[in-house]
Each structure stands twice: as structure tokens, then as C-alpha cells.
């Protein structure tokens, strides 16, 4: 009898259902209000107003008509949205509390059969409660609750308010299904569900083509990732025979370790992760995803959804640990993405785009962590990253909220998100300024902050495994494993330096130096309302204290404190981690020196930023000259989007239009075969009719010729 059998864990189905109920209520309200607003919906008539805020962050239309619609419905949505999240968080905490400390086997709760086909593919709706899933549940519902509260203030007067909260609740529901799923198909439901909701939320202000394009692009790129997930599932099922995590974990021993099959499964799973977590080949959708509201970017594209890839690798650690080549690929992709995204981040002017590239880079770190087999380090970085990245986005949201209010009052059409229009906001937004500095220090990896502990643990684990692990023994594309891991370490360090650089650059341009918003706007620049600043403060606190979750050993603290997360996740990923390091706990050679190096690198990044950058020299966006040379390449993100567009999208569309449709379908099959045969018959008939001259003499001749032929036949016989 499983220890959790009778306990609160039985209610685990309530976790996704609660946000789902929120979605249903809010969805009904949003449909009800817009359904009865009638075709002449006032906000639709403001078509021209949208043009002013082309493509950028604009809580759609601050038109005066929104005020009267603050009917009770609006209040219901305000209550239902965050309440449902808090309840879910409470239930999560209850389950966390009810869980015994050393629960060896996960508690799998099966509800009803989903796709029972024959005896060899019993797919059921089943949730799995173990340390990993509870940890994810806690941090997902926690961060979501905070962001919901932030959204109440931020999206307050947007006409699509109910619809926004409906989608946000739906997102949390699907995320919980993803995290709690007990088998790959159930996880896949959550996997594509979050993809769907991110499509809906990115294209939230769908009346602007750029936003709708970004949404569709996100869904299709995610779908390419899901293709990998499907193929991985088919490979697992046809070789292992089951798709449940426990079943696959048990059955994977039968496959040849490190063999081509296992590596292919893991590589396809990696393709899925790159799609969802925006890594090298399929990261292009994340920067465009900034077209959605800022809280959405904070929640989905910083804290929760993008970490789904890391969760997948951690959850299938039993597969990855058995195929070192795949693990090395994960680590390499993570490292390359980290550096690549960091370089682009240097020259971005839009504050949200900059944070997007910083997210891509930070997820690269997580992939390094789980890639080298240090699953706990990777997950630890997931948690701490969600704290300070959410804080950065919400801070940016407060800044944009203020800027937008200012520009709105003076009816100017300046871009509320461009750093060149900001500057010197320290005086106007002191609280946000302090919190943003905390987040910047955390993300750069300055000691006492959360970022330092998780990033340092990842870097340490890379070096530990470079020295002695199954990864080091194997060759990756001809290069020995250890060399690859050292290269990964160097890339990671370079990434850390650049991270510190561009984060400090952001702080300097936004908060320090002279204000470039404009004289009359400054009057309206003021601190964000309490609803917005409360979550920011909470996240600030978490960014500072986040480190205590998994304090490193070299601090020689009392027993209970060090490595809390290690012990917590040991039953789930423990043996996979040990397998990678030849069954012995990895310890980093001369660890303190490495930590020192990391700190020096971080501080160097901040100092160079202060020295090199001169915020005073900046000019507002409207009269900034276009950048030249390598700077322009960085600003245009290495032209990767244009490259994809020209090599993949346009040729496929052109080929299918001119060749497949017009060529084969209309031309070959329809033209030649179908209409062609019809034309041939017509021709045949027409030539036949030529014989009917109407002259009797001609018919006589025909008869005579016939007689001659017959007689001829007789004579020859």
C-alpha cells in the first residue's frame, strides 16, 4: 500500500481541474460580454487607433468606453483568475507536506482508460506524484499565482480582460497536466496544450498582423518539436513495449546501453526539447513571442513553459543517462545556444527582446546541466531562473506600464518598450529600480544571490564530469568526451561574462543616466501601482533567498542545510546521475578555485559594462542612426529569421503553389489525364463526323469499297 495512497494525493486530479474551471468561467464571461456587445463593438471601430502602437506592447485600447464595462463580471474575473491558482498552490503545498521524505516509488493515480487498444498499448489518464512532479507543481503554481496578481493590475482596462485570464488559467491547467502526466502520451497532451495556449496568448492582440504571425510561428515551430516527441514515443513503444514512465524505466535495461537505438530516441526527444525550450535550431519563435502581453512573456516564455524541455530530459533521465552521445549533444547545444543568444542580447534595444534572448541563453545553461547528467543542478537552475527572470519581466512590465501611461497622456506615438526612450528612471521608479538590480545581480551570478548557487553548481558539475564520467569516455563526432566538456565549460564561462555585461547594460540605459522620455512625459512617469509592485517584491525576496534550496557542500554548513534539493530529488534522478559518473558521487577537483573564477568573471562583466557604456551619449529612438557593421548583424539577430524564411518557408510555399498545385494537380492530373482524355474523345468524334458528307455518292462509294474488301477477303482465303 503506497504511503500516499489514502492521503491528500488522491485529489491530485483537482490540480489541473481547478485552473480548468477558471478557464471555463472566464471563457464563458468573455464570450458572454463580447457576444452581447453586438457586431458594432466599440473597440472594433477603433481600428485606426491600433495603428499608432504598431506591433508593440500596447494594452490594446485605453479608450474611454472601457470604464463603464467594469461591471460585476469584471470583478468575478479578477477574483476567479488568481483564486483558482492560489487554491491549486495550496493543494500543491498540502501534497508536498503529506509526502514522506524518502518516498522510493512514485504514487501513480490512474483515473480511466484513455486509448485502451489491445493488451499491448494500455494508455490511461494517469497522474504521477513524485518528488520531481511536486517540485514542478509548486514552482509552476507559485510563480503563476504571483503573475496572475500582477496581470490583474497590468491588464486591468484591456477589453479582452476575461479572455486573457481564461487563456492564462488554461495554460496553467495544461502545464500541470504536462508536469503530472504519468506516461508520455498524457505528458504529450500537456506538451501540445501549452503550445496551443502560447499560440493564443502571443496572438492575444490578434488584430495586428505581426502578433498573429508571431502566434502562428510559435505554434508551428513547437509543432516541429512535437514531431520529434511523437517519433520518440513510437520508437519507445515499438522497442520497449510500454509508454508509462515506470514501465519504460524498467524496460530500458533490455536495450543495448549507448546503442544507436537509444541515441536516436534521445536525439528525437532533444528535437522536441529544442522546439519547446527554444534552443538553437528552433529558438526563432521565442523573441517574436514578445508580441504577447508582458505578464504572458513573464509566465510562459520565461518561467514555466520554456522549462518543459528541461523537465522532459530530467523525467527521461533513465534514457539519457544510458546514451552518452545524446547527453553530449544536449550539453553542446545548450552551450552553443547560451553563447549565441548572449551575443545577440548585447545589441538589442527592445527591453523585452533583450530579456527573451537572455532567457534563451539561460535555458542553454539548464540544458548543459541536464546534458552532463547533473539533473539536480539543471532543475535547481530552473527554479532560481524562474524567480529572477519572472522578476526581470515583471519589472520590465512595470517600466513599460509607466512609459505607456506617460505616452498615452501626451498622445505621443513613441515606442514604450525601447530603452533609448527610457533612461534615468531611477528617480521615478525607485522600488522597481532596486528590485531590478537584485535580479540583475542574481542572474549574473554574484554570490549571495540565487543565480550564483545554481549556475556555479552547473559549471562545477561540467568540470567534474569532464574529469571522470561515462560522457568523458565516449567520442562525440570524433572529439573525445572530456575535450567536448571542457569546451562546454569555456563557452559557459563566456556566456556568464556576456550575461553580466548585457544585464548591466540594460540597467544603465534604463535606470541610470539622463531621462530621454521627453519633458512633458516626465510629469506622468511614476512608480507602478501596488498591485504590480507586490509580486515584484515577493520575487525579489525569492531571488535573494532562492539559493538556500540547494546550498553547495564546500560551505561546510550544518548537515540539514547543504544539498536539500539533492536529497529531495534523489529517488527520481539519483541513480541516473550516479550512472553517468560511474556509480560514485561526483566531486569537482579544486572546487573553490573554480567558484572564485566564476565570481571574478561575473564581476568583470559588470565592471566592463560600467566602464565601457556611456548612457549619457544615448539619443532617443526617433533620431538614432542605424547601426553599422557587426553591430547591425547583432541587432538583426544574425539574420537567422530571414535565413529560415528564404531557405525553408518561401521555397516550400512556392513549390507547393507552382509545382504541386498548378503543376501536378491542375496540370498533369487534371489537365492531361482528365480533361485531356475528354478533349481526345471530342477530337475523335469531330474527325468521325467529317466522313458524313451528306453526298449520297460518297455513301455509295463506301459500300463499293466494303464489297471489294469482302470479296477480296474471300478470294484470298
Amino acid at each position, binding site marked *: 500500500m503506497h504511503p500516499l495512497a489514502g492521503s491528500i494525493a488522491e485529489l491530485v486530479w483537482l490540480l489541473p481541474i481547478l485552473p480548468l474551471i477558471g478557464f471555463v468561467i472566464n471563457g464563458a464571461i468573455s464570450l458572454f460580454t463580447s457576444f452581447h456587445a453586438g457586431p458594432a463593438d466599440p473597440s472594433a471601430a477603433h481600428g485606426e487607433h491600433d495603428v499608432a502602437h504598431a506591433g508593440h506592447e500596447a494594452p490594446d485600447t485605453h479608450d474611454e468606453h472601457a470604464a463603464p464595462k467594469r461591471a460585476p463580471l469584471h470583478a468575478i474575473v479578477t477574483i476567479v483568475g488568481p483564486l483558482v491558482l492560489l487554491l491549486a498552490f495550496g493543494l500543491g503545498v498540502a501534497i508536498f507536506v503529506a509526502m514522506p521524505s524518502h518516498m522510493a516509488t512514485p504514487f501513480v493515480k490512474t483515473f480511466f482508460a484513455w486509448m485502451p487498444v489491445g493488451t499491448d498499448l494500455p494508455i490511461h489518464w494517469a497522474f504521477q506524484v513524485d518528488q520531481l512532479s511536486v517540485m514542478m507543481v509548486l514552482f509552476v503554481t507559485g510563480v503563476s499565482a504571483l503573475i496572475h496578481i500582477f496581470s490583474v493590475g497590468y491588464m486591468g482596462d484591456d477589453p479582452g480582460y476575461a479572455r486573457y485570464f481564461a487563456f492564462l488559467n488554461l495554460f496553467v491547467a495544461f502545464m500541470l497536466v504536462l508536469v503530472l502526466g504519468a506516461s508520455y502520451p498524457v505528458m504529450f497532451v500537456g506538451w501540445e496544450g501549452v503550445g496551443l495556449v502560447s499560440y493564443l496568448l502571443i496572438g492575444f492582440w490578434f488584430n495586428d498582423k505581426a502578433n498573429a504571425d508571431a502566434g502562428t510561428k510559435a505554434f508551428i515551430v513547437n509543432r516541429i518539436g512535437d514531431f520529434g516527441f511523437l517519433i520518440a514515443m513510437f520508437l519507445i513503444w515499438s522497442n520497449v513495449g510500454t509508454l508509462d514512465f515506470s514501465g519504460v524505466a524498467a524496460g530500458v535495461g533490455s536495450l543495448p546501453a549507448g546503442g544507436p537505438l537509444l541515441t536516436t530516441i534521445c536525439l528525437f526527444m532533444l528535437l522536441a526539447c529544442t522546439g519547446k525550450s527554444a534552443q538553437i535550431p528552433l529558438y526563432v519563435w521565442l523573441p517574436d513571442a514578445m508580441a504577447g502581453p508582458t505578464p504572458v512573456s513573464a509566465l510562459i516564455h520565461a518561467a514555466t513553459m520554456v522549462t518543459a524541455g528541461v523537465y522532459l530530459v530530467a523525467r527521461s533521465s533513465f534514457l539519457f543517462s544510458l546514451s552518452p552521445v545524446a547527453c553530449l549533444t544536449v550539453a553542446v547545444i545548450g552551450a552553443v545556444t547560451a553563447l549565441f543568444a548572449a551575443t545577440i542580447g548585447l545589441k538589442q534595444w527592445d527591453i523585452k527582446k533583450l530579456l527573451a534572448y537572455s532567457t534563451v541563453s539561460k535555458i542553454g545553461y539548464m540544458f548543459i546541466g541536464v546534458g552532463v547528467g547533473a539533473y539536480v543542478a539543471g532543475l535547481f537552475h530552473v527554479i532560481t531562473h524562474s524567480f529572477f527572470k519572472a522578476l526581470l519581466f515583471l519589472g520590465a512590465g512595470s517600466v513599460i506600464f509607466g512609459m505607456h501611461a506617460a505616452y498615452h497622456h501626451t498622445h505621443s506615438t513613441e515606442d514604450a518598450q525601447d530603452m533609448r526612450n527610457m533612461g534615468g528612471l531611477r528617480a521615478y521608479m525607485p522600488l522597481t529600480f532596486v528590485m531590478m538590480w537584485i535580479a540583475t545581480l542574481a542572474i549574473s551570478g554574484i554570490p549571495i544571490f540565487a543565480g550564483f548557487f545554481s549556475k556555479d553548481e552547473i559549471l562545477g558539475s561540467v568540470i567534474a564530469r569532464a574529469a571522470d564520467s561515462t560522457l568523458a569516455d565516449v567520442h562525440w563526432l570524433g572529439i573525445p568526451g572530456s575535450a567536448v566538456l571542457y569546451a562546454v565549460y569555456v563557452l559557459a564561462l563566456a556566456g556568464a561574462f556576456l550575461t553580466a555585461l548585457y544585464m548591466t547594460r540594460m540597467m544603465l540605459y534604463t535606470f541610470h543616466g539622463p531621462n530621454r522620455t521627453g519633458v512633458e512625459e516626465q510629469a506622468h512617469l511614476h512608480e507602478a501601482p501596488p498591485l504590480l509592485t507586490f509580486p515584484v517584491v515577493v520575487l525579489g525576496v525569492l531571488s535573494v533567498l532562492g539559493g538556500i534550496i540547494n546550498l553547495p557542500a564546500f560551505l561546510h554548513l550544518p548537515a540539514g542545510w547543504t544539498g536539500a534539493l539533492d536529497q529531495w530529488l534523489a529517488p527520481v534522478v539519483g541513480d541516473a546521475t550516479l550512472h553517468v559518473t560511474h556509480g560514485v558521487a561526483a566531486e569537482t577537483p579544486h572546487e573553490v578555485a573554480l567558484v572564485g573564477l566564476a565570481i571574478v568573471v561575473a564581476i568583470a562583466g559588470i565592471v566592463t559594462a560600467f566602464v565601457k557604456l556611456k548612457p549619457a551619449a544615448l539619443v532617443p529612438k526617433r533620431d538614432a542612426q542605424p547601426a553599422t557593421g557587426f553591430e547591425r548583424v547583432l541587432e538583426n539577430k544574425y539574420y537567422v529569421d530571414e535565413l529560415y524564411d528564404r531557405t525553408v518557408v518561401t521555397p516550400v510555399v512556392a513549390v507547393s503553389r507552382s509545382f504541386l498545385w498548378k503543376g501536378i494537380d491542375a496540370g498533369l492530373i487534371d489537365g492531361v489525364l482528365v480533361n485531356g482524355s475528354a478533349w481526345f474523345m471530342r477530337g475523335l468524334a469531330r474527325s468521325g463526323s467529317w466522313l458524313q458528307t451528306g453526298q449520297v455518292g460518297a455513301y455509295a462509294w463506301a459500300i*463499293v469499297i466494303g*464489297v*471489294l474488301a469482302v*470479296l477480296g477477303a474471300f*478470294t484470298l482465303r
Partner: protein
Amino acid sequence: MPNGFVYEFLFYLFGLTAIVSAAIFVTRRNAVAAALWLVNTMFCLAALYIMMDAQFVGAIQVLVYAGAIMVVFLFVVMLLNLGLPPSVADIKSKGARIIALVAGLAMLAELLVLARQKLPAELPWLPRETSVTTPITEPLFRTYLLPFEITSVLLLVAIVGAVVLAKRRS
């Protein structure tokens, strides 16, 4: 009456006159002249029938064919006053005529090739006292009774058809 010389002579005489008059008939431009030459061919044929022990048919030939059908032809020619030759010759161009001749000769050659088979001996002549129509009665009214009845229907239909077609629309 054995096939004496006189019999053969007469047979050839009538045969050749039939052919010559048929040839002339084909070349006459005047319809009436052509009709009369055809009547002459028919008379020669009637003679041949009689010489080949088909006296009744010979009589019918003269009576029905030459007498009735050709008279109708002449009657129609007179009705449509085609007597005088038309301004434009109704014979086709020289080229067409040559081709027609060639086709005719080819057909003749094929027929003659086919005719080279060995024919059985002739039947004995009818004894003098039997009446001319007895040999026909048995096949006509017993084996071929149905065709005989059908021809009567055919003739009825032809009469009605001819009247309807030729009647002047009111």
C-alpha cells in the same frame, strides 16, 4: 431439248445484247433513252430466263419488271420533265469516272475468281406436259411461306409510304 448449237447461239446472243444495252444505258445522258435501253436489257434477260427453264419467272420479269417498274420510272421522268438533257452534264468528272471503272473492273476480277468453282451438273429439263408453275409451288407455298406473307406486308407499307411522301403538303 439438248443444248444444241441453236440454243447456245441464242443464249449468247441474248446475253451479249443484254450487256451491250446495259453499257449504253449507263452512258445515255437523256433519262428517257436510258430507261428504254434498260427495258431492252430486261427483255433480253427475260429471254434468258425462259431458256433456262424458268418460264414463269421470265413472264413475271416482263410483266412486273419491264412492264410495271420501268413504266413507273418513265412516268416519274415525264412528271419531272427530265426528258431534255440538263444544261450541266450529270456525269461526274473524268477522274471520278476512271476511278469508278477501275473499281468496277476490280470487282469483276474478284467475282470471276470466285466463280471458278466446279459447279454440279444441270438438272434435267422439265417434262413437257407439266405446267410451268408447278416447280415453284412447292418451295414458294411451303418452305418460304413466311417470306411470301412478309413481302405482301412490305408491298402494303411501300404503297402507303409512297403516297405519304409524294402527297403535296396542303
